[in-house]
């Protein structure tokens, strides 16, 4: 019987994880923000100017990220806090980071045998969109595009090993 590490190594592309990422995202939004996500509308193009990232280390190394507009991130925070968007203030980044943290945790708990062998970092939030992310690994990036209250959101898992 193969170990979790061997199974991870065998499956280099991890494309079968994409549906699990999507389920993990949908569950977080339904349970914590009380809203259902829609399928992404390719016609909607907006500059995604806020990014939350959570690192994964251990049997699976990588970075889970969540990108959207600052307006959408504020709406997420307002739904989590149960306040109007104009009352959110400085807690927006905390809420947005926590959404990504829960997505990463929920996703890894869906991979059999990975839960205890993979640790999560505390979230990091980047505002602005004038940056490039460079990975030192040639492993693929898995991506899920959905729509939150009409605004596009992009969830990515960059697998390092």
């Amino acid at each position, binding site marked *: 019987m193969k170990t979790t590490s061997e199974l991870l190594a065998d499956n280099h592309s991890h494309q079968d994880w994409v549906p699990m990422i999507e389920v993990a995202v949908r*569950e*977080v939004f339904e*349970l*914590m923000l009380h809203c259902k996500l829609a399928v992404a509308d390719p016609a909607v193009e907006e500059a995604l100017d806020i990014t939350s990232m959570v690192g994964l280390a251990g049997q699976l190394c990588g970075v889970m990220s969540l990108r959207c507009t600052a307006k959408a991130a504020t709406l997420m*925070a307002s739904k*989590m*806090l*149960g306040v109007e968007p104009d009352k959110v203030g400085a*807690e927006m980044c*905390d*809420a947005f*980071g*926590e959404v990504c*943290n*829960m997505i*990463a*945790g*929920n996703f890894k*708990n869906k991979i059999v045998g*990975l*839960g*205890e062998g993979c*640790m*999560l970092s*505390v979230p990091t939030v980047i505002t602005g969109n004038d940056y490039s992310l460079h990975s030192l690994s040639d492993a693929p990036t898995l991506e899920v595009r959905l729509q939150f209250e009409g605004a596009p959101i992009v969830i990515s898992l960059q697998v390092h090993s």
Partner: protein
Amino acid sequence: MNSIRALIVDDSSVMRKIVERSLRQAGIEISQVFEAGNGAEGLAVLAENRVDLILCDINMPVMDGLAFVKALAGVANAKGTPVVMITTEGSEAHVVQALSVGARGYIRKPFTPDQVKEHVIPLLAVNA
């Protein structure tokens, strides 16, 4: 059930508010909520205050939730106080580890108020 005093330990202030709201939605009457951003801050709260319920995250800077729960054994104000972990760490190994160091309940994030109710009410009833 009498009004309770609760300590919520989580490095996210938003999550602390959500946990408090979930307790209230579960019908638990709360007279006072203490908040702490990590285990060390939680111990500082307990050095001066007795609480009826502790809800605690695992992944936190400075002192994580498992170290905090272990340290509660030496805290007089925490004697007999039920501790429920609320965390993204959902593996069976983490649950076993948390329960072995003294936690009495375990809730995985994301969670619903009903899950909070299901895990917390029985513990408060036992301690009432």
